[in-house]
């Protein structure tokens, strides 16, 4: 996922649905628009299907020509040790940057919604700009800073870079959650003999948790798929996208397809589970309430 992808997702996720739940009659014949929508989605999914299918290819070196079906690559992913190392690095970077960005961003989000302070618009701009800056500029800028300061590039610099671009996304996502939180809930907590500490940990935090988790997942997705910024700040350290970029010239091993497909399936399953569980919750509420 790239930065602007993140912004688009955040926006769709944090925008509350308001419109009356009623569709309109189809204009262009009753079948043209749905047909188009289905074809468009199929088009979007073609490369995913391709990647998935070729993870079963019994390839030798490059994975371009179909050489027969095999489960080998799924079972022995780490035969291609470079892929596994790169994948491991991506996981380490993703987890570390996610934790750092989630903590920093959540704190900012709470401050933005709940407190009044000077330089508010300057701070908003500072949070907004990283999302609107082309990644190549962010990458080159950080790299030139590290160069000037004589910092050795490696895992550390990648983590610093990823944390930087994830913070803004955490802020947007958590901020949306904070602003839907009824301040009366925290007041009720204080009124019911909760000290400020207890109110935060027993009321505010559990209520913000879904937003914080969404922000963390988004951060991880951004970090895991980032290539451009990483490429400028990685030095000799390999990450999964960087590995693909470098091997693109001589051919990608099918093991890379295996990892990408596995990550994809995991992510889709997570999304579907959350969709289904929230749909079920709504149904349960509708059944019980009122």
């Amino acid at each position, binding site marked *: 996922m790239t930065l602007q992808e993140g912004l688009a997702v955040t926006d769709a996720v944090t925008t509350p649905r308001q419109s009356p739940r009623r569709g309109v009659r189809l204009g262009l014949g009753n079948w043209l628009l749905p047909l188009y929508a289905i074809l468009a989605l199929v088009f979007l999914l073609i490369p995913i299907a391709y990647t998935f299918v070729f993870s079963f290819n019994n390839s030798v070196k490059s994975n371009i020509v179909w050489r027969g079906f095999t489960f080998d690559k799924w079972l022995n992913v780490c035969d291609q040790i470079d892929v596994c190392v790169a994948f491991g690095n991506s996981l380490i970077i993703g987890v570390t940057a996610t934790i750092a960005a989630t903590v920093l961003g959540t704190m900012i989000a709470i401050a933005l919604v709940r407190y009044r302070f000077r330089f508010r618009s300057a701070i908003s701009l500072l949070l907004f700009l990283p999302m609107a800056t082309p990644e190549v500029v962010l990458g080159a800028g950080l790299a030139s800073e590290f160069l000037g300061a004589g910092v050795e590039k490696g895992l550390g610099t990648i983590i610093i870079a990823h944390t930087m671009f994830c913070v803004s996304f955490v802020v947007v996502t958590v901020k949306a959650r904070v602003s839907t939180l009824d301040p*009366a809930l925290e007041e*009720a*907590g204080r*009124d019911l*003999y909760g000290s400020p500490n*207890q109110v935060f940990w027993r009321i505010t935090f559990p209520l913000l948790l879904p937003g914080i988790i969404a922000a963390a997942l988004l951060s991880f997705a951004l970090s895991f798929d980032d290539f451009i910024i990483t490429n400028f700040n990685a030095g000799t350290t390999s990450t999964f996208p960087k590995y693909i970029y470098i091997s693109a010239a001589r051919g990608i091993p099918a093991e890379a397809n295996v990892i990408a497909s596995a990550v994809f399936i995991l992510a889709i399953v997570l999304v579907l589970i959350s969709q289904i569980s929230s749909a079920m919750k709504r149904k349960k509420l509708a059944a*019980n309430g009122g």
Partner: protein
Amino acid sequence: MASGTFAESGADLELVGIQKRFPGFTAIEHLDLTIPAGSFFALLGPSGCGKTTTLRLVAGLEDPTEGSILIGGKDVTKLKPFQRQVNTVFQSYALFPHMTVLENVAFGLRRRKIEDPIGKAHEALVLVELDHLATRKPQQLSGGQQQRVALARAIVNRPALLLLDEPLGALDLKLRRQMQLELKSIQEEVGLTFVHVTHDQEEAMTMADTVAVMNKGEIEQLGAPEELYELPRTAFVANFLGQSNLFTGHVSGSTSNSITVDVEGTKITIPTKRAQRHKGEVTVGVRPEKLHLHKNAPKKEAGTNSLGPGRIIDVSFSGVSTQYTIAIPGIDKVTVFQQNTTFGPLAGEGAEVWVSWDVDHGFGLEDEPGATPRFPADADTASIAVQKRRALMSELEES
């Protein structure tokens, strides 16, 4: 942290010289108020009159700019909300959505480390007749049930003072009436001091022992509901609590127990003890249901005021009664409520009628007639704009 005990009983609440300023406007100018222990007290006023701010000051959710708050004689002005033996039933109920009903109710008990929080929470739920829903989440309850959980969550702590911030505002009319009665009986049962904020005059009068009418950050009048209704002291109270016919004129004569006001040539007499001002220009009034409608000129009798003739310009039927609006030359409009003891209106539109009422039913206000509405010196422009607009609207409606 409050000590782990319950308040013995309700406590007095005293507000001394309270002022509350927010950046840009003053919510409360100067407020002195004493609420005796064990009473059901209602703060009644239009939105923006400062009643909710008053409640939040007592709860400790806001700090007063000036003045002090005493509960049971103890100064609590500097105490944080969680250190005060005060609980609030919030307007939005503010039930914690991530906890069950039972955990919501037990929350305060747990924070104060009171023994057997679950048992006590169940008892409170039994009191509001919701114990069977203890394991539900708040979102799974109806509005009225949520309201009762919020009440249980507050009273389970046996606070010295229970604050209710328009707790029935979100309920429909029928449920609202039912909850009013329930609240009242619960208050009698537990004997706590209830302070109830509302803009619904009927609700305030039904439930409270004492009602304070607030307007623009000040208390206009305080007293038992009946007293407020029958003897309003200001034009605001006379019109906010029900409707009134008000007439302004010079005092033209007085006896030992009555004064007479000359309203454009018509004499209106009211008892001296029911008048706040006894000379100069005064405003007197009478409630519309106290008026009698006559098709012929009534005989002049002592002990009765009469006006007329005038013309009926509007008749509107509202079930138990019919409202007649009568234009009387020189006196503007007079409103009369007539019980529908028979079928059909007494007189139709355009009919010539007279009205009369018992002198004892009149009242005299303490307002300076013609006094301009008070704007606090630093009222925000928005509120001035709103008031200006309202004035303009009522002008338009009249013309």
